[in-house]
């Protein structure tokens, strides 16, 4: 249930923890922020880290946004710019009043003992709750883009800050209703050859959706045809699903009813459209008249 590369998520009740989040739900905004930060890292930096802000609910942790944190990492020591961290936290919380620190992110593909130290640091910030760690693998080395979430669990008889077991937790992409159109727009952009797209108009959007549906119908037709021809073995589940879809028709309505409903709707729409036009021309005339006097 990780995004991208597969992982085996297990849940372990760590002793002494308050309540463990069972799932991490990630906003696209946070991911974009992390990726942007990664793009801006200095050449000598191996990875970038930052703070995750979000909201805890009964069952999951919602990661809503993120901000970058300065850190330095050498062969034998790490440091976080604490002052920067606190300042950034202060300005962030002025705007996003509901969001708290829920954990930290890092780019790259490995968890090392520095990760354990960071985890320890963030656990102090998020106490009494567990801090989550989001590992965003940009595929530099592994060639596969993936996002994984972990909880830290102390290891050994006597817990030491640099010893930590990272327990994977499932992570899913959270999308609010209002976000869908935006994400679709971004997806359109990402599919273009130069990753750029103009903002689509209403009609263009409609056209795209229709083309999508047509291609899907084509796919189904091909599939059905090849099942009939005996080229491939039919899947009964798909068959039943298709039957269900075909059974949803408007036959339940009386014969003339649908037509009258259709006409009413068209008339309403035309009326509103006429009104809108009228208002616009009136507004234009009015503003011109002001200039005439």
């Amino acid at each position, binding site marked *: 249930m990780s*995004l991208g590369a597969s992982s085996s998520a297990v849940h372990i009740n760590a002793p002494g923890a308050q309540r463990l989040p069972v799932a991490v739900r990630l906003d696209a*905004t946070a991911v*974009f*922020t992390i*990726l942007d930060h990664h*793009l*801006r*890292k200095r050449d000598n930096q191996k990875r*970038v880290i930052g703070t995750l802000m979000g909201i805890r609910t009964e069952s999951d942790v919602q990661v809503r*946004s993120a901000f*970058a944190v*300065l850190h330095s990492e050498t062969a034998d020591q790490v440091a976080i710019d604490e002052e*920067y961290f606190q*300042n950034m936290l202060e*300005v962030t919380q*002025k*705007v*996003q009043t509901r969001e708290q620190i829920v954990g930290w992110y890092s780019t790259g593909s490995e968890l090392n003992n520095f990760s354990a130290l960071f985890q320890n640091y963030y656990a102090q910030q998020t106490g009494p709750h567990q801090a989550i760690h989001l590992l965003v693998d940009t*595929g530099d080395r592994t060639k596969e883009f993936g996002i994984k979430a972990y909880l830290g669990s102390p290891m050994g008889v006597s817990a030491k800050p640099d010893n930590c077991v990272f327990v994977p937790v499932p992570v*899913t*992409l959270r999308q609010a*209703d*209002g*976000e*869908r*159109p*935006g994400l679709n727009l*971004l*997806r359109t*952009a*990402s599919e273009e050859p130069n*990753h*750029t797209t*103009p*903002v689509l108009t*209403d*009609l263009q*959007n*409609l056209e795209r959706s*229709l083309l999508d549906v047509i291609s899907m119908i084509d796919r189904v037709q091909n599939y059905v045809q090849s099942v009939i021809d005996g080229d491939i073995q039919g*899947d*009964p*589940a*798909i068959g039943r699903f298709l039957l*269900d879809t075909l059974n949803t028709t408007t036959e339940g309505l009386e014969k003339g009813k649908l037509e009258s409903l*259709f006409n009413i709707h*068209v008339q309403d*729409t035309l009326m*509103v*459209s006429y*009104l*809108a036009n009228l*208002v*616009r021309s009136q*507004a234009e005339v*009015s*503003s011109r008249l*002001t*200039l005439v*006097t």
Partner: protein
Amino acid sequence: MATSMAAAIAASLPAPTAATPSSVKPTYDAIPASMSKVIDIQAEIPITSVQLDAMVVSKIIKHGRESAFGTGTLLGLDFDGTVEVSNCFSLPAFPEEEDKAAKAVAQANYQRKVIGHLREVQGDENAVGFYQTTTVPLRQSLVDLQAADNARLRQGGILVVHDPSQASRGIASFRAYRLTPQFMSAYKQKKFATQSLIEHRLTFSSIFEELPIRIHTSALASAFLSMVSKPSSPTTLQSYAARSMTTLARPYSSLPPDFSHLDLGLPSAVTRNLEQVVEGLDSYRTEENNVAYLTRQIAREKTRADAYVTTRKEENARRIAQGLSPLPEEDVSRLFKIPPEPSRLESMLLLGQIDASAKNLEEATGTGLVRIYAAQDP
């Protein structure tokens, strides 16, 4: 030719975002001849389009979802006529009661603080404009905000408006504007009387000029988006479930395709839009009444002043005829307070608002018609 060359170079270059770390002394290299056409230090190349980064789009949408009238600062660069907005941050909502000056100071302080912090992690540090999430396209506060920073920002800065209410129709609505020079010159003089409007040829449609927007996703963001929209293979459990039930399992992709554009009904969006138009008309009517009242007031005072001047003249003529010294002609403007001509800015903005709402409505109904005819049985 020069522009196309410049555009080609612009496309092949990585976004020049090298912020010099504060500890290192910045060194200034001479701009190579090939780049001199596209890098304009004096801000001479006029802005013709706006490019938003994926992160900016996503952040603005998030802000729009959380607060009705969210404002924020856009950071980025202008490069060969295109403003590349690569980052943004939201400004906290300062309480309305605070006086305007204090609010502006608090806002500026906050802005400076955040930009300073972003600089430390190699972020962009040039403010290029503002964004606003609002359902009402033109508002006085918006114009004030934009006009106030016009002088500080390069080329006056840009304004990106996002309308979160359009999301219910499946549209991510982003528009970019900049204030026109005519409006700015009128604004600087703080004169919006009829005469000044005529001089500057100002109507609601010439306050802002709209700039085309393009959306850009970085290579990493594209990789992420393609990863989440790619259908992943179902887990073993899901495929067993699909076999034994009459329904197929949900699409296995994290970002499944969206078909809300094909929804036929959608009365709510049109109704809300219609309400907006009607509300706009109502407030325009109120504003017109105010202006008319003030105009009548001016006319009344003027008549009284004129009447006074005439009587005084007649009296003087009579006195001269009688051989008396004439009474001094007093300054009328001191005796009668003729109120200044009312500002037409508010009513102009309201008209613009009505026009924009009506335009939205027109678009919505237009698409609605296409949609319903498409759904009709052939």
